[in-house]
């Protein structure tokens, strides 16, 4: 479909676009556009979160020859959809004209081989959410480096509090921290992929958390923002959470948490590495069977770069972080009541976006790779190590690439 002729924009007749996303109350945002564009009406349909069934829906719709015009696809999943020819190359419809409106790191993650396959919608610059009251119990402040973090964690354990959780079943957190240390696992090199998961940055990160888990500094019983995590947070058993900016909306779901949390910069590695990292982040992509790609692109650009679009997204959908290079949204420019009056977006997350690893790119079997890594991580609870898990996962990911008929080779750092 990307080699077929470009579909001309509709002339005069009314066009209805469907948009599948798991954003809350997206229709409110679409209605702002709908009011101003009577000829192009957008209809939002809620689907479960990507990895909780949303992507499966999209894949089965594509396989059956149908599907929506627009879909919410995370940055890390764009290459997977490219592999099944599921996305329209928006460069053919003029997307590159808008490149300068977007954060460079994000634009890099949607551009492959001269094409543009999604319009960045939000991202997840990371910071440290923390409970000053719980940290005060052991006389600590928000840790500035990972070593501080480990030391504080040990003190907190004496008060029977965990500093954070380490999600064994969701390697995206580990990946983000390794990225912060400087890792860049997969890259395109000409006609093939190259992989390097056993570089120093990754292995040092793995060793660090191996020690942390062995010393019981973190809990591995649940992941952040899961039901057991909410219960533990409400019971004052969790002191901090290193997570992305979109966590602020989720944090407000902690029973009785108002006013108790603050935000600080993410802890950093002692040598090298970056100030922050990112987890998650979605795009609005145009799916292959859409009959109105040009109109869909225009809507996506409006939604993600116009002031009113961004404000509406933040107000209604609680998106993580505006993808626009210059505008973070009116709401985010204010101090926050939940965070005790701290203007955390301008203080913490805005600078964080300038300190991210720009070299990272995603690859076509991200979900399968994360499952492979998670399987290895799970062995930690029966005597394995994260270091071994990473090394084994690298081998299994190479096999998975080859099974799909893609060429890949291992490079050393």
């Amino acid at each position: 479909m990307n080699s077929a002729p470009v579909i001309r924009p509709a002339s005069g007749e009314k066009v209805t676009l469907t948009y599948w996303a798991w954003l809350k109350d997206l229709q409110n945002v679409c209605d702002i556009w709908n009011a101003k564009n009577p000829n192009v009406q957008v209809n939002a349909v809620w689907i479960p979160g990507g990895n909780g069934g949303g992507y499966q829906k999209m894949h089965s719709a594509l396989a059956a020859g149908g599907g929506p015009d627009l879909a919410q696809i995370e940055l890390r999943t764009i290459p997977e959809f490219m592999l099944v020819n599921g996305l329209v190359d928006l460069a053919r419809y003029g997307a590159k004209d808008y490149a300068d409106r977007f954060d460079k790191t994000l634009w890099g993650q949607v551009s492959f081989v001269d094409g543009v396959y999604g319009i960045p919608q939000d991202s997840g610059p990371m910071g440290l959410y923390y409970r000053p009251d719980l940290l005060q119990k052991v006389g600590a402040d928000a840790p500035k480096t990972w070593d501080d973090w480990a030391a504080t964690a040990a003190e907190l354990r004496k008060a029977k509090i965990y500093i954070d959780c380490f999600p064994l079943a969701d390697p995206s957190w580990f990946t983000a921290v390794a990225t912060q240390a400087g890792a860049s696992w997969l890259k395109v090199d000409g006609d093939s992929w190259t992989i390097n998961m056993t570089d120093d940055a990754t292995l040092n990160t793995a060793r660090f958390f191996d020690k942390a888990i062995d010393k019981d500094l973190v809990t591995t019983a649940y992941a952040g923002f899961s039901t057991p995590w909410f219960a533990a947070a409400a019971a004052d058993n969790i002191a901090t959470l290193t997570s992305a900016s979109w966590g602020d909306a989720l944090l407000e779901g902690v029973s009785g948490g108002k006013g108790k949390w603050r935000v600080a910069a993410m802890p950093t590695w002692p040598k090298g590495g970056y100030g922050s990292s990112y987890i998650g982040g979605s795009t609005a992509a145009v799916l292959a069977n859409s009959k109105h790609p040009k109109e869909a692109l225009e809507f996506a650009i409006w939604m993600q770069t116009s002031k009113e679009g961004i404000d509406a997204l933040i107000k209604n959908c609680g998106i993580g972080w505006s993808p626009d290079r210059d505008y973070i949204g009116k709401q985010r420019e204010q101090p926050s009541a939940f965070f005790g009056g701290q203007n955390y977006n301008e203080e913490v997350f805005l600078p964080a976006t300038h300190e991210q690893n720009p070299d990272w790119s995603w690859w076509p079997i991200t979900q399968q790779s994360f499952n492979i890594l998670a399987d290895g991580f799970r062995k930690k609870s029966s005597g394995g190590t994260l270091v071994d898990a990473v090394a084994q996962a690298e081998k299994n990911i190479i096999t998975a690439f080859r099974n799909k008929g893609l060429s890949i080779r291992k490079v050393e750092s």
Partner: protein
Amino acid sequence: MTSTVSATRTRTPSSSLRGKSQHRKRMWAPWALLGPFLLLFILTFALPIIIAIGESFTKVTRHGIFGEKGVTTEFAWFSNYAQALANGNFIASIGRMLLFGVVQVTVMIAACTVLALLLESASARWPGFFRAAYFLPYGIPGVIATILWSFLYVPGLSPLIDIAGMFRIQLDFLGAGTVLWSIANIVTWTYTGYNMLIIVAQLKAIPTDVYEAAKVDGAGPWRVARSIQLPLIRPALVLTTVFSIIGTLQLFAEPQVLQSVAPAIDSEYTPNLSAYTTAFAYNDYNVAAAQAVLIAAVAFILSFTFLRLTNRSSK
């Protein structure tokens, strides 16, 4: 056990013609009656299996870093099956289900037999109430039952863990070693009452003179249970076991729903979950088809073997 329709007719001139057309009617009648069922059966059972087998022998290869340089479909010999069997997770899931089946089916069948015997014994009061209470979970779909039980398993929400905590007992329902049995608990909770009713039905069919004879011989309740009731409910036991075996291999909803609260459950925890993930998360329809064929084959062989074994020993 067939009842043949009587074919003899007195041949009179007027009735012989009628006999011929009646015979013709009877030739196509069974096919007319079977027709709708057969058509749908072919559409929803036979064709899919044939398609699955076909897909499992096909392979898709891609060129270029994203397949943008071309995609070719070709005959794959057994490479999909090899890939399915080389997938450690898939093999582990089958092994896990066999272990699960051996333990859970045995415990459940034993429990429902004991309950049936107790319920039908002379010592039980209010049998109607108990039958209703035990049967109730059967009507609750597995998904909803799992949602219910997940709230009883999650620390912080679960009153069971809170109560145990008061006695200083640490309960962990969702840990790596225990989550499989927590799933087994949900399945047992849902189906025990149902299976029990089947056995109760068969118990009720035992003629009273058998019991009279036993009483005359001076047999106590234990002896009666062992020597009379158990052998006579054997057909019901066999039936429930066969279907429980088939059910075990189909386990999907319970682990999938528990996944979000139990990190120990990976996305290939049971054979069906593995096939589903392979098809819809990894987009490997061909390998998933091979997995589906393997699962169907294993289920068929296990049930068939079990039926053969119990038939042979009953002769």
